[in-house]
């Protein structure tokens, strides 16, 4: 196999989400990344050129992001759209979420699977309420890396003072939040400055371009490899002569590293055993997050979906009382005493809302005490009690065992997204 081909088979994957207010140039930026990385096809470009011309514009890259007919008619983005591009180093998945204030739920959805957030700020307007909201939601969802793009630098004469002023203001805000890794870049998505290539217009900026950061930010440490958690998803039982007694526990490793011979504990029963084999694509010596594997254990217990395999000496919290930050995603409001289905790892059980502790004003981050309901796009702190105990970690420690969703029993809709505090 040639080196070129081998390179294609050995790339990293980075998922990022983009957020910006209306007209911050988000579509143009993504269009620019796709266009300059040559991900776009000639027929797609021709189509956009044609429409741009009809509208009397030059090549309008934002048109590439146009989605459904329903959206074009209303001139809005109604949902999270996923885009893909690759450079020779990495493959990227973009969760593109709309900027309207009422779409908190979409941003939360896009952020839930992202390892990096690209947040756009219009250099002319500086930090606005929505900027705070975007940064806060990304931090709430524990996205490990942030890139703040100060866009439309061309419209402020590429002035360094403007950039520094916005940067310092955001730094002040970020210091109040739980954010580890932040970068700032002055860009012009329209002209391409500091997106893929550097900028002759801003010689004062010595940092990296957006593309360079996306390709090089270290993402190898984003998975939790310390706390071993293996939620059992499915039990494989062939029931034929050859594999008469075979019982394989299939699932995706949530966190940590497992090896054959490891002493394990099974929750909720508390039984202990030893890992006999782990199979992925073939028999493997070590399995780590986020691999999908099948484990066989030494003892013959009756365990199944919803149970969790952990290490004997490192167990999660086991409790029916769960305290969480909740983003509400449905028109039907949440009240104390409401009952829902809760889905956590591979476990499904019922829960009741015991208490609404407070609601959050997500623009000012002020707590609204004494709230009696949580409505669509609200974020609040609540306490639930579950019918069966959950095995969980705080969302801050573990993005897989620390999250849950609430489902309405009547409509079956997913109505809430919860990040467990403790």
């Amino acid at each position, binding site marked *: 196999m040639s080196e070129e081909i081998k390179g294609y088979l050995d*790339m990293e994957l980075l998922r990022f989400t983009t957020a910006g207010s209306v007209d911050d140039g988000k579509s143009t930026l993504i269009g620019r990344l796709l266009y300059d990385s040559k991900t776009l096809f000639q027929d797609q470009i021709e189509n956009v050129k044609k429409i741009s011309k009809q509208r009397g514009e030059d090549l309008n890259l934002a048109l590439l992001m146009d989605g459904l007919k329903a959206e074009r008619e209303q001139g809005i983005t109604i949902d999270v759209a996923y885009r893909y591009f690759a450079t020779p180093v990495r493959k990227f998945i973009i969760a593109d979420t709309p900027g309207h204030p009422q779409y908190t739920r979409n941003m939360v959805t896009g952020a839930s699977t992202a390892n990096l957030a690209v947040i756009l700020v219009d250099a002319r307007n500086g930090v606005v309420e929505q900027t705070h909201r975007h940064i806060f939601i990304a931090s709430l969802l524990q996205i490990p890396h942030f890139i703040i793009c100060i866009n439309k630098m061309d419209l402020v004469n590429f002035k360094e003072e403007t950039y520094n002023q916005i940067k310092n203001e955001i730094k002040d805000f970020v210091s109040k939040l739980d954010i580890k890794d932040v970068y700032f870049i002055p860009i012009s998505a329209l002209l391409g400055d500091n997106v893929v290539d550097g900028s002759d217009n801003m010689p004062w900026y010595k940092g990296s371009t957006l593309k360079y950061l996306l390709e090089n930010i270290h993402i190898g440490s984003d998975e939790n490899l310390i706390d071993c958690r293996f939620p059992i998803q499915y039990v494989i039982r062939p029931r034929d002569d050859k594999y008469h007694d075979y019982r394989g526990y299939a699932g995706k490793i949530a966190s940590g590293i497992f090896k054959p011979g490891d002493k394990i504990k099974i929750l909720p029963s508390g039984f202990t055993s030893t890992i006999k084999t782990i199979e992925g694509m073939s028999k493997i010596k070590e399995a780590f997050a986020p691999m999908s594997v099948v484990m066989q254990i030494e003892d013959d217990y009756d365990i199944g979906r919803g149970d969790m395999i952990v290490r004997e000496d490192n167990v999660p919290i086991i409790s029916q009382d769960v305290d969480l930050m909740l983003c509400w995603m449905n028109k039907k409001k949440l009240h104390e005493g409401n009952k829902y289905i809760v889905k956590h790892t591979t476990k499904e059980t019922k829960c009741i809302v015991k208490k609404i502790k407070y609601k959050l004003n997500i623009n000012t981050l002020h707590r609204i005490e004494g709230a009696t309901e949580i409505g669509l796009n609200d974020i609040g702190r609540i306490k639930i009690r579950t019918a069966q105990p959950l095995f969980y970690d705080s969302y801050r420690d573990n993005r897989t065992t620390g999250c849950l969703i609430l489902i309405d029993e009547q409509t079956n809709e997913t109505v809430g997204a919860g990040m467990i505090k403790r």
Partner: protein
Amino acid sequence: MTHYNLTHLEKLESEAIYVMREVAAQFENPCLLFSGGKDSIVMGHISKKAFKPAKIPYPFLHIDTGHNFQETLDYRDKFLKKIGARLVVGSVQKSIDEGRVKEETGKHASRNTLQTITLLDTINEHKFDCAIGGGRRDEEKARAKERFFSHRNDFGQWDPKNQRPELWGLYNGRKHAGEHFRVFPLSNWTEMDIWQYILKEKIPIPKIYFSHKRKCIIRDGVILANSSYLNLDEKEKQNIKEMTVRCRTIGDMVCTGLTESKASTLEEIVKEVAQIRSSERGSRADDKRSETAMEDRKKEGYF
């Protein structure tokens, strides 16, 4: 790659396996939509991995328009035998014979839109509560907004404005009687990923994906394989010519556009895809019908 990092293909594979196991765990009677194209072949290959050493716990459903490349049918039977999957066929011809649908007429007649009825009828007949599909979000803008677990109402329809939010890897497959789900384990794969994976896993694929000589016609800029299923006009009849082509996608013969190509190995295909300048579905006559062809068909219950 460092020791505890997965490559992009390993991550995508792990995600797809996870999704298939969720289907097996959450639904009573799922099936997998199998067309004999590369995406459904990859799904078959991954299904086998997800449940071994047990059998794949769902049958493979082929919606047969009757306008197949013979190579695809031969491949289908061989491949399903190899991975030990059970085949269910839904026949468009049967839907026509039974008067459920009316064959289109004229030069551009195709059975593409008729398939939707056959598909929904077959889902009803077998009481499938979930159909796993090979749709990828990079294919088309209506697909870019699709969920992994996509809810369909009593009529099999998709409502893009009213989809369930999908967070983390927590897939909500709860439904009322009569409703069903479409699940897309390859949502995050691109055309390039599919080819890279086929190369890496050494998966055999139908010969028509490789360069070969074939009698073709060119209609509206799309190269189509000449066959008795096409209604040719006089000018087209005079312009049948032998070309060196390969398939980038495989649908039925009437709407699968071919690409002029000399790529005769998987490595050459990967290189070609890396350089190719037109989109995969750009050659599909079924997508050329209108700007929103895919969105409209999806709402009605298409694949």
